[in-house]
C-alpha cells in the first residue's frame, strides 16, 4: 500500500490488525504465490527448480505476490509492541465461525471491551483458503472495524475495509488484486467521497522479471479540496530480489526511499534490516530486528532496535497443554527516557 493511502486514510492499522486477527485465528493469509523458498526444503526446492529450469528453459516465472506484501517478510520480523494489559478470549463455534472477546486496559489507546466476529465461507480455491471472509469488531460505543475479503475467481480478489468511529466513517478502502501467471496488478480506492469530491486512487503493478527478481511500479493519485493544487500524483518504482533465504526489497519515489533486507539465518533465527528515508520529513530511520522461534519451548521472541534508539521486544509463549498464550511486550527509549510495558493473555 502506498504511503499516500497510509498517510491520508489511516486505515492501515485496521488492515494490519485484521491480518493479525486472521493469523491468530488460523485463517488464510492472502496467498503467497511468490517464490518463498525458505524453510527446510529450501535447498531441495532450489535443486529441483534448477533441474526443472533446465528442462523447461526457464519459462516458469512465478507470480510475484502483491505490492502490498513486498516488504512483508522483513516487516513480520519486527516486534509490534503494545501498552497495558490485554485479555482476549477466542471462541471457535465452528470451522466457519469464530467470535472473540477482548478487554484492553491501557493509558494510550482507548480502554475497554471489544467484540469480534469472523465468518469464513465455503468457496475454496486452494486447500488452505476459503472465501468470503468477513471480519467485524465493535465496541460498546459503536466504533466498528469491518473487513470483507472475497476471491471471485482464482485470479481476482477483492478486499474492503472500513472504519467507523463516533458514527462517522473515518476510513474506507476498496482494493482489487489481479494475479496473472507472472504479474500482479492491484488497484485501490481510498476514502472516496462524491460530496467533497476527494479520494485516493492507487494503482500497483509487480512483474516477475527473472525467477529471483520482481520489478514494479506504483502510481498514487490523490484529489480533493485539501490537496495542494487539488490533485497530486506520485509515481514510485519498486523491486525485490530473492536469493535463497535472503530477500532484498526496495521502494523509490519522490517521497523517499525504503529499503528492506530479510535473511533467514537458521531454523530458529530470522533477521530483518530496514532503512526508511522520508524526504518530506527530512529524516531517515534504520531498524534492525530479529525473530527467534523455539518450537520446542513454544516460544517466539522478536526484538528490534532503531536509530531513534527505540528498543522493543515481544515475547510470545504458548502455555501448552492449556489453550493459553501469553505475550509480554516492552518498548524502551533511553534517550527520551520512557518505557512502555504490555502483557497479554490469549485464551483459545
Amino acid at each position, binding site marked *: 500500500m502506498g504511503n499516500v493511502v497510509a498517510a491520508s486514510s489511516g486505515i492501515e492499522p485496521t488492515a494490519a490488525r485484521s491480518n493479525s486477527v486472521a493469523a491468530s485465528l488460523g485463517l488464510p493469509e492472502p496467498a503467497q504465490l511468490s517464490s518463498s523458498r525458505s524453510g527446510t526444503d529450501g535447498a531441495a526446492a532450489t535443486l529441483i527448480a534448477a533441474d526443472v529450469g533446465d528442462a523447461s528453459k526457464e519459462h516458469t516465472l512465478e507470480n510475484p505476490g502483491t505490492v502490498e506484501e513486498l516488504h512483508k517478510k522483513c516487516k513480520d520480523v519486527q516486534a509490534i509492541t503494545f501498552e497495558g494489559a490485554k485479555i482476549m478470549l477466542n471462541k471457535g*463455534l*465452528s*470451522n466457519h*465461525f*469464530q*467470535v472473540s472477546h477482548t478487554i484492553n486496559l491501557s493509558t494510550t489507546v482507548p480502554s475497554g471491551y471489544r467484540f469480534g*466476529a469472523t465468518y469464513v465461507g465455503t468457496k475454496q480455491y486452494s486447500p488452505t483458503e476459503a472465501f468470503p471472509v468477513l*471480519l467485524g469488531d465493535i465496541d460498546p460505543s459503536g466504533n466498528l472495524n469491518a473487513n470483507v475479503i472475497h476471491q471471485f475467481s482464482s485470479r481476482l480478489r477483492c478486499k474492503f475495509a472500513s472504519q467507523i468511529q463516533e458514527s462517522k466513517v473515518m476510513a474506507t478502502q476498496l482494493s482489487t488484486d489481479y494475479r496473472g501467471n507472472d504479474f500482479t496488478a492491484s488497484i485501490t480506492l481510498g476514502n472516496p467521497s462524491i460530496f467533497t469530491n476527494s479520494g485516493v486512487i492507487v494503482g500497483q503493478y509487480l512483474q516477475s522479471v527473472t525467477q529471483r527478481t520482481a520489478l514494479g511500479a506504483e502510481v498514487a493519485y490523490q484529489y480533493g479540496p485539501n490537496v495542494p493544487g487539488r490533485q497530486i500524483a506520485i509515481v514510485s518504482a519498486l523491486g525485490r530480489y530473492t536469493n535463497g533465504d535472503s530477500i532484498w526489497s526496495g521502494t523509490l519515489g519522490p517521497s523517499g526511499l525504503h529499503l528492506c533486507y530479510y535473511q533467514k539465518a537458521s531454523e530458529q533465527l530470522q533477521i530483518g534490516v530496514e532503512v526508511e528515508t522520508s524526504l518530506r520529513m527530512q529524516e531517515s530511520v534504520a531498524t534492525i530486528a530479529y525473530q527467534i522461534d523455539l518450537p520446542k519451548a513454544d516460544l517466539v521472541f522478536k526484538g528490534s532496535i532503531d536509530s531513534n534508539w527505540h528498543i522493543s521486544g515481544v515475547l510470545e509463549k504458548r502455555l501448552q497443554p492449556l489453550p493459553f498464550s501469553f505475550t509480554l511486550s516492552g518498548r524502551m527509549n533511553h534517550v527520551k527516557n520512557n518505557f512502555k510495558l504490555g502483557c497479554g493473555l490469549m485464551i483459545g
Partner: protein
Amino acid sequence: MVLSEGVKERLGVVVDIVQTTFHWGFVPMVLYLGFSKGAEPGMPPLSLLSLLWQ
C-alpha cells in the same frame, strides 16, 4: 462531477441510510451467517449463549 444542491441532499440521505445500516448491521450479519452455517456435524447445536460460553 458537478451535482446540484438538491441531488446532493438526496444522495446524502441515501448515503446516510446505507452507512447507518452498515454500521449497525455488519456484525449482526456476520453473526447471522455464522449461526445459519450451524455447528459442525456431531457437535451440539449453537445458541446465542454459545457466543459467551459453551
